[in-house]
C-alpha cells in the first residue's frame, strides 16, 4: 500500500542526517556534560555548538540567550509563568500558551478575524489597560495563519509590555530574525522541523526577566535545571543547520504543493471550505467539510495509508471542538468536518498526487455512509 504523510504540523520525520549527528551521543560519548572529564567536555562542546547554530537560525546575536528545554510546551509555560501581571494572548494560541494564560486568571484573549489574522483594533483597545506580556504565535498550528509579529511586538512595546512569540510552526517555513525585532522571547520545538521529540528551545533577550521553572542542579546558567539531553540538543542543532541550508527553494516547493492540493480538492469535493488565510503558511491546509465527520474521513484515509489529522494532534479524540476554529467563527455545521493536511520539505509530489486521488473518494464514501445531503 502506498503511504503518504500529511501530519507534519503534529510531528515530522527525523532527518537521517540529524540522527547521524545524534548517534555518537547515544553511544560512545554518553557523559554527563556537567562532569569534569574529557568525555564530558566533548559532550559540552557539542551542546555549545548546537547553541550557536540555534542562535544563527533564529537570528540572535548571543547564543547565551538560548536555553534548551524538553519542548515548546515547557518553554511556553516557562515564559507565561514568569509574569505575575496581566497578559494578552491571541485566541488561537497553542494550548501550552493559552491554558497557562487562562489558568492564571490574569489574561485576556485577543480575538482574530475569520481568517485567523489578529484583530488589531481589538488588540489596540486591550493594550489600553496595563499589560506585562503579549504572546502571539508567528504561525498557527491548526490553520496556518501567519501573524505580523513585528507589528504586534511594536504595539506591545509601545504599551510597555514585553512580547513573546511561539515560533514553533515557523521554523523552516520563513526566515527568522529576532535580534533587531520587537521580540523578547521566542520558543520552538525540535520535532516540528525534523529534530527528535523531547527537545525544544527558549530564547530570552538579555535583560528580560525569566522565572526559574525547572529547579535543581542549576544547569543552563541556573535558568533550567536537569541533566542536558545531549543527543536531543545535538539533533536540534543539526536540524537547525539543515533548515538554514534549505532556503527559499524548498519553501516555494511546499507552497506550490499546498496550492495544488487546495485547488484539486476544491475542484473535486463539493461543499468544502478552506480555513485560514489564502496566503498562509506554506505547509498547512485546514479544510472543513460541510456536515461531515472529519474524524471518519481521517480514519478512511488512514486505511489507505494517508496520515492527517482533525485539528491539532494533542486534542485528537478529546471530543472538544477546536478552540481555533471556534475563534475564527466557523459555523457549527462546518466545525466537525475539519481536516488538517500539513506538509514538510520532505513531502514528495508522489504523496501529493496520491492524496489528491484519494481525498475525494474518502469524502464521498464517508458522506455516502452517513446519507449525506448537502444544505
Amino acid at each position: 500500500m502506498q503511504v503518504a504523510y500529511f501530519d507534519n504540523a503534529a510531528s515530522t520525520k527525523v532527518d537521517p542526517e540529524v540522527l547521524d549527528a545524534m548517534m555518537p551521543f547515544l553511544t560512545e560519548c554518553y557523559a554527563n556534560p556537567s562532569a569534569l572529564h574529557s568525555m564530558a567536555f566533548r559532550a559540552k562542546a557539542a551542546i555549545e555548538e548546537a547553541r550557536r547554530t540555534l542562535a544563527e537560525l533564529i537570528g540572535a546575536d548571543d547564543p547565551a540567550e538560548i536555553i534548551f528545554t524538553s519542548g515548546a510546551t515547557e518553554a511556553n509555560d516557562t515564559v507565561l509563568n514568569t509574569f505575575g501581571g496581566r497578559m494578552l494572548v491571541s485566541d488561537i494560541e497553542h494550548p501550552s500558551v493559552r491554558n497557562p494564560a487562562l489558568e492564571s486568571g490574569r489574561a485576556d484573549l485577543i480575538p482574530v478575524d475569520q481568517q485567523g489574522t489578529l484583530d488589531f483594533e481589538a488588540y489596540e483597545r486591550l493594550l489600553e489597560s496595563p499589560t506585562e506580556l503579549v504572546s502571539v504565535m508567528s504561525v498557527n498550528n491548526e490553520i496556518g495563519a501567519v501573524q505580523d509579529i513585528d507589528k504586534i511586538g511594536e504595539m506591545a512595546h509601545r504599551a510597555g509590555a514585553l512580547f513573546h512569540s511561539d515560533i514553533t510552526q515557523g521554523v523552516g517555513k520563513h526566515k527568522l530574525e529576532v535580534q533587531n525585532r520587537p521580540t523578547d522571547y521566542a520558543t520552538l520545538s525540535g520535532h516540528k522541523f525534523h529534530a527528535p521529540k523531547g527537545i525544544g528551545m527558549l530564547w530570552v533577550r538579555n535583560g528580560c526577566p525569566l522565572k526559574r521553572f525547572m529547579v535543581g542542579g542549576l544547569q543552563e546558567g541556573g535558568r533550567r535545571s536537569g541533566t542536558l539531553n545531549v543527543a536531543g540538543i545535538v539533533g536540534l542543532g543539526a536540524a537547525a543547520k539543515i533548515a538554514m541550508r534549505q532556503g527559499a527553494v524548498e519553501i516555494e516547493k511546499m507552497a506550490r504543493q499546498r496550492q495544488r492540493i487546495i485547488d484539486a480538492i476544491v475542484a473535486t469535493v463539493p461543499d468544502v471550505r478552506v480555513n485560514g488565510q489564502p496566503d498562509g503558511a506554506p505547509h498547512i491546509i485546514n479544510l472543513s467539510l460541510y456536515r461531515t465527520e472529519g474524524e471518519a474521513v481521517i480514519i478512511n484515509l488512514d486505511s489507505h495509508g494517508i496520515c492527517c489529522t482533525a485539528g491539532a494532534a494533542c486534542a485528537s479524540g478529546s471530543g472538544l471542538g477546536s478552540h481555533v476554529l471556534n475563534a475564527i467563527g466557523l459555523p457549527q455545521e462546518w466545525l466537525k468536518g475539519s481536516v488538517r493536511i500539513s506538509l514538510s520539505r520532505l513531502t514528495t509530489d508522489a504523496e501529493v498526487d496520491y492524496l489528491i486521488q484519494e481525498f475525494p473518494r474518502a469524502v464521498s464514501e464517508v458522506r455516502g455512509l452517513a446519507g449525506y445531503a448537502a444544505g
Partner: protein
Amino acid sequence: MERIYLDYAATTPLEPAAIEAMLPFLRTSFHNPSSLYEGAREARRAVDAARDRIAGVLSCHPAELIFTSSGTESANLAVIGSLIAARDSGRKKVLLGATEHHAVLNLTEWISRLGFEPRICDPRRIVEEIDEQAFLASVMHANNETGEIYDFARIGSMCRHHGVLYHCDAVQSFGILPIDLTTAPIDLLTLSGHKCYGPKGVGVLYVRAGVRLAPLITGGGQERELRSGTENVAAIVGLGAAIESTYRDASRASRIQAARDEFEKRLFGGCGEEGLPRPIPTLGEGVARLPQHCHVRFPGADAQSMLINLDSFGVDAGSGAACSSGSVEPSHVLTAMGFSASEAKECLRFTFGKDTSPEAPVEAAKRVVRAYSAVLCPRK
C-alpha cells in the same frame, strides 16, 4: 591507554538494547502518539508498553506513572505539584532531607511562595520531625554523592501513620536496589532514565492512586493532564527497553559490588605501599550504602586537581554531583554530614556500573594512586 569510566552515578551509558529499541522511533515511526492514524497508534502502543514494563518492575499500576523530561522535573512535580493541589491544607510543614538532590532542596523558595514552611532535616533523624503539622516529607532512597541508603520503609511508615505524603527520590538506587510499591509506603517516587542505562531527556514520576497532584506544565493535556507536551516516544521506549534488559541481568548488583570492593581494597593498599595518607571513606562503618558507590576523602588533595590528573591518566570520576562539578561551593551533602568546607573539597566519587570490566578495578586503583601521588608530591 583504555579509559576507565567510574562516573556511573552522573550518567550511565545507554544500553545497546535500548538504542536498538529507540531507532525505529527515530526513523520510520516518528508519529505523534496523539494523532489518530495507525502510525500514531503504534507510537501510542509503544509508550504504553514502556509504561507497563516500568510498572512491572515497581509493582504498581501503569496509570500511576507519568513520563517527564528528567528526574529533576519529576522531583519538582512531585513536591510542588502536590503542594499546589493542597494549598488549602491546614498542614503547612514540608520536611526535606538535608542531603536531598538540588532538584528537591532548591525548591524551598517555591515552597514558601506557596504558603508552606520548608524545613531542612537530618535525613537520618527525620522520623522524629514527622507529625500532624507536616504535609509532605521528601527523603531520597539513596544519596547520589555518598551512596548512603536511607530507610524509606521506616520514614514512609511514619509518614503514613501521621497522614503525611512521602516523596522518595530513587534516581540513584533504581535498577540496583529493588522497590516494591505494593508494600513500600511511598506516595511519590522519582526516577530518571539516564541513571539506569536509559537515555537522557526522560524521567518518571510515580503517583500513588488517590494522591492529588497539580500539573506544572500545562498545554495539550498529555499524561492524564499532569504533564503536557508531545511524548518523547523514542526516549520512553528506550527507557522501557533499558529497564527490561537491566533487570534480566540478575547478578548485576553483586558484580558491581565486587568491583567496587576490589577497587577500594586496591586503592587503600596501594596508597599504603606508596606511603601516601590513607583515603578516608566518607561514610562510617555500618552505614548502609549503594553497591556502586565509593566515596572517599583524599587528605591533602584538592578534588579538582585530582580530577584533572585522573582525566589525564584515563579515569572518569566525579566530585559531588555532576551538575555542580564546576561549582566552587562545597557539597551541601558533605557539609550537612558535618564535614568542613576544606574536607568536603577533598572528596571524590567513584561509581561502578554493570559494564565495568573485571580488570577495571585493579587498573583504576593504580591510576588513582598515581594521581594522588602526583597531586600530593608534584615533583615526584
